[in-house]
């Protein structure tokens, strides 16, 4: 069990100020180990105390005391040396006491972390869940509560699909904004200013659903819906009963051409910009050729360093279709719900297919980078044992993706970039874990200029243009956790001299 501490180091002021949590300078502890270490130190303190008693016993030894009159000078010297060994500055008695105190402190730290974790759990999940459950039990109010909890998702649908872009969606763009006009923009503005409330609402939603079902005399199979992944698992079962949210997790992958020689990514900002070219409006709405024909477009970059060592970067754009009915385009609402549930999706399978199509080999390091649902697909692929057996996924970068519930192995180095006023990364209803292999960088993008053609604050907070600005701050950050992450990812950003081949891959969901 890993504890998360309350600590997060304030980030650098560069680029409008970023805040960094987790990573090598974050707080993480295996509480059982910590408590055991405390107990061991206390036992060692006791044993040092036993050795001190051996020394004290010699001081009081009758044979030693009886020898004093025979050689008083050496007796006094020996007596002083014994006192020094027992109770002097380097003596055993003080050492025993200090070890015991250190053991107590470590055990107290473990207990403190456990208590803090419990309080955080209650505050972040328990209280919202209970409030949601109570509202849900009230029946009609429960419907309202569920609606309230789902409102952020609807608003995200609005923001992520370019809610206030003027005119009709471009040809091939399947999604239409759900919150339109003045009231929609106003609602989006409120949500953007209070994005943290979305996390609370998301945490309340599983309780609301459980309460609503209980008020109808229904008990979810598997017990109460505990959290957002549990809620997503419940929703995703709809696919078995209806045409909605039916995820095949099967995908057909083909390369869009022979590929082109390119330059190596210069850094995270460059990576965000490259993903944005897969989503030309930089807000998640993909209207590019190929993708508009019902396929998602991913990019795979093969990076060959001067010594011939190869590394791979996969770039995955965000959601583009909000219909609850799954289509051939895998980056859709169905994929998002199943990804939240931790189940394989066509998009996550597309990542594996893209690496195969591009010629990646086992043992070559892979970085997966995605925006929004693309980030969820990246995390899901990196957590998938079958994908990890085939490819060496060492790094994941996400921009504005709700991945806190992802079961990512500790061998994968995660960098999650989030905006505090972006509701999308908060839809998982929980904060990202604070651990050495997971760095979360956040920034308030509220003062950023709006993306071109948009007046929607939600879209601005979630846009890749904004995330590229945050990523630029990450690129120059001196925060120890960020620097350690960048050092570990150096193979993907090799600078001049490396040979890079870039190929675009089209992915289409297949039917069983």
């Amino acid at each position, binding site marked *: 069990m890993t504890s998360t*501490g309350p*600590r997060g180091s304030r980030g650098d002021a560069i680029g409008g100020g970023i805040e960094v949590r987790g990573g*090598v*300078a*974050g*707080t*993480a*502890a*295996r509480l059982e*180990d*910590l408590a*055991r*270490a405390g107990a*061991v*130190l206390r036992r*060692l303190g006791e*044993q*040092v105390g036993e*050795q001190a008693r*051996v*020394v004290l*016993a*010699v001081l009081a*030894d*009758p*044979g*030693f005391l*009886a*020898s004093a009159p*025979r*050689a008083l*000078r*050496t*007796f006094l*010297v*020996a007596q*002083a*040396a*014994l006192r*020094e*060994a027992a109770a*002097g500055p*380097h*003596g*055993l008695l003080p*050492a025993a006491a*200090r*070890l015991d105190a*250190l053991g107590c*402190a*470590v055990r107290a*730290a473990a207990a403190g972390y456990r208590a803090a974790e419990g309080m955080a759990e209650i505050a972040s999940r328990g209280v919202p869940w209970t409030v949601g459950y109570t509202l849900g039990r009230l029946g009609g109010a429960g419907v309202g509560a569920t609606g309230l909890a789902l409102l952020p998702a609807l608003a995200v649908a609005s923001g992520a699909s370019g809610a206030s872009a003027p005119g009709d969606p471009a040809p091939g763009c399947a999604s239409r904004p759900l919150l339109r006009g003045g009231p929609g923009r106003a609602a989006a503005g409120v949500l953007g200013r209070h994005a943290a409330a979305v996390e609370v609402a998301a945490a309340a939603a599983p309780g609301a659903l459980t309460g609503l079902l209980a008020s109808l005399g229904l008990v979810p199979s598997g017990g109460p819906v505990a959290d957002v992944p549990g809620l997503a698992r419940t929703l995703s079962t709809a696919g078995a009963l209806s045409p909605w949210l039916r995820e095949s997790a099967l995908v057909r992958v083909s390369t869009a051409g022979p590929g082109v020689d390119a330059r190596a990514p210069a850094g995270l900002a460059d990576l965000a910009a490259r993903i944005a070219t897969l989503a030309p409006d930089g807000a998640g709405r993909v209207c590019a050729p190929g993708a508009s024909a019902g396929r998602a477009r991913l990019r795979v970059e093969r990076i060959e360093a001067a010594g011939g060592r190869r590394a791979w970067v996969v770039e995955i754009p965000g959601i583009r279709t909000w219909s609850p009915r799954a289509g051939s385009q895998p980056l859709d609402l169905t994929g998002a719900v199943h990804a939240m549930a931790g189940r394989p999706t066509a998009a996550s399978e597309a990542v594996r297919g893209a690496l195969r199509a591009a010629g990646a080999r086992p043992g070559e390091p892979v970085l997966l980078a995605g925006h929004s649902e693309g980030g969820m697909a990246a995390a899901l692929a990196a957590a998938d044992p079958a994908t990890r057996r085939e490819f060496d996924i060492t790094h994941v970068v996400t921009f504005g993706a709700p991945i806190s519930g992802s079961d990512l192995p500790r061998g994968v180095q995660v960098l999650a970039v989030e905006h505090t006023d972006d509701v999308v990364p908060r839809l998982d209803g929980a904060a990202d874990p604070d*651990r*050495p292999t997971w760095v979360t960088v956040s920034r308030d993008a509220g003062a950023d200029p709006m993306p071109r053609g948009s007046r929607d604050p939600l879209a601005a907070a979630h846009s890749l243009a904004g995330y590229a600005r945050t990523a630029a701050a990450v690129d120059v950050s001196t925060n120890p956790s960020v620097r350690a992450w960048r050092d570990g990812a150096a193979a993907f950003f090799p600078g001049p001299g490396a040979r890079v081949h870039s190929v675009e891959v089209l992915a289409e969901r297949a039917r069983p």
Partner: protein
Amino acid sequence: MVGDTAEAAAVRAAADRLQASARAVRDLARWSAVAGVVDWHSDAAARFRARLDEEVARLQAGASTVDGAAAALRAHARAVEEATG
């Protein structure tokens, strides 16, 4: 030849016990260092490790003071033998 006495033998036996005690303290110092190998990352963890390093060094120094006491006892045992011889 220096003659032996019951007092000198008792003092030598005490010195032997102290030397065994010094060895035990060195072992405990090594075990203390191992106890610090724990999956804990934070500023507090860094302070803990620094403090534990200090304690391990102090325990090693403590073992040396016990060795010193044992040496002083042996010197005293010799002086007792000389006085009775």
